[in-house]
């Protein structure tokens, strides 16, 4: 599976990272109650996901594999991602305050966003080359942005809906996500891509 277009379609729509793969749900539901937070979160994820994919891919192919240390990948990857996020936070704060104010509060949350680590793992599990990994990371990130933007706007519209009390908040967001997933099922089988 090295057709870049198919990788894009699969990661962006057919196997949408949130709605179909269930990666990154905590930030997805955590910060999507308003559009003002949902969109920057999505942007931050794309950014970090792409960077971390490049770093982990090189680390894996040129350090872990040659040294026969594959079993250390979990430890190494999570440390790399955690320090990358730390570094970005400091870097933005000092150098690009505008970006910091846009993404700043979301960066720490991203460390524990399993979508980032998950994509790093999936790249390896799928034996992706660097280019495929990059496309996969960016399109997964875009898929995240799409899903979080949509749910953000939907949740804003539900703000004054007379939803039964016990379903208010997270449960109704889950149901909305379920129906979004139902709609996304329309893409399954698209150009032969399956779930």
């Amino acid at each position, binding site marked *: 599976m090295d057709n870049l277009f198919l990788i894009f379609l699969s990661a962006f729509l057919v196997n949408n990272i949130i709605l179909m793969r269930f990666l990154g749900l905590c930030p997805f539901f955590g910060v999507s109650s308003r559009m003002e937070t949902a969109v920057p979160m999505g942007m931050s994820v794309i950014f970090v996901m792409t960077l971390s994919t490049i770093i982990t891919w090189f680390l894996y192919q040129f350090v872990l594999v040659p040294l026969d240390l594959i079993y250390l990948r979990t430890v190494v990857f999570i440390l790399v991602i955690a320090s990358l996020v730390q570094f970005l936070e400091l870097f933005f704060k000092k150098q690009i305050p505008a970006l910091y104010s846009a993404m700043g509060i979301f960066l720490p949350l991203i460390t524990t966003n399993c979508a980032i680590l998950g994509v790093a793992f999936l790249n390896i599990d799928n034996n992706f080359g660097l280019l495929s990994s990059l496309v996969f990371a960016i399109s997964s990130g875009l898929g995240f942005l799409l899903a979080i933007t*949509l749910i953000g706007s939907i949740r804003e519209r539900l703000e004054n*809906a*007379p939803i039964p009390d016990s*379903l208010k908040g997270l449960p109704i967001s889950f*149901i909305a996500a379920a*129906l979004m997933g*139902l709609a996304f*099922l*329309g893409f399954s089988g*698209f150009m032969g891509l399956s779930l």
Partner: protein
Amino acid sequence: MLQLTPAPHISSGTNTKKIMYSVILALTPALIGSVYFFGWRALFLTILSVLSAEVTEYLFQKVTGRESRISNGSAVITGILLAFNISVNSPWWLPVAGSIFAIFVAKQVFGGLGYNIFNPALAGRAFLMASWPSLMTGRWIAPNSGTLSGLSSITLDGVTQATPLSLLKLHQGESVIQSLNSPGMLKALFFGNVGGCIGETSALLLLIGALYLFIKGYADWRISVGYIGSIFIFSGILYLFRVSPVNPLFHILAGGVMLGGLFMATDLVTSPVTRKGRWIFGFGGGIICVLIRLWGGYPEGVSYSILLMNMFVPLLDRMAPKVYGGLK
């Protein structure tokens, strides 16, 4: 005692109930047609579907202690539309399950009428598609060609026949494609004398109903024109470039394009409120529909295309038109 409600002191006289019952009336020609083409079982399944929808709505409102609004007719529309989206050859419990899902999961938990994000009937159909794909796509029968013989029996027999769209998906060679492009096929599609879901086959009867709604102003023609028009244009371009084997007329007449484009995309609650938004909504849905039909995993893309566009409605509603005099 003088009464003190705020201005304005007169109203246009239109109310929710009137709108809903007009939609039901507009669906009636297609319902009658379905009985004519597929026999009494079409009516039986529709009634079952409507009853399940109404009962679900009633029970939900009862259990959650809300004011009962079942008489406003919105659940009836959902019931009819859901039944219109299944084969006449379906087991009786299929429309029941679909309607319960539609009303409960897609509508009532969101706060009921006016607050649902997705068209309930379409969500119900997508639920059925995901859960019982073989019942939803593999059980087509040929219409009784208006011999009225179907009227007497509520049976599951009948000549099984693939729908024109499934023939297209199967791609069974040049002769099949030729027959799909033939004027005879287009005529059959226009009048409804083909296999398919209960209420979707007759473009003519659906158009009659929709025209009534357009004139009444209870459905926006912009959505329908945007949706059906974009399918026509997009599939037409693909036909010219020989990407699509069938002509654009086939595309807009076959399957659920008329039912979806005229009645489900125009659902007031789940479509955008601005004119610009409505054009985009219709246009986007049409493109997605053609993409799914030609490249997707399903023969038909109408219901998914509209559901997918439903998701974008809250975003489209943010595109406010320019306010008079501009805003500071």
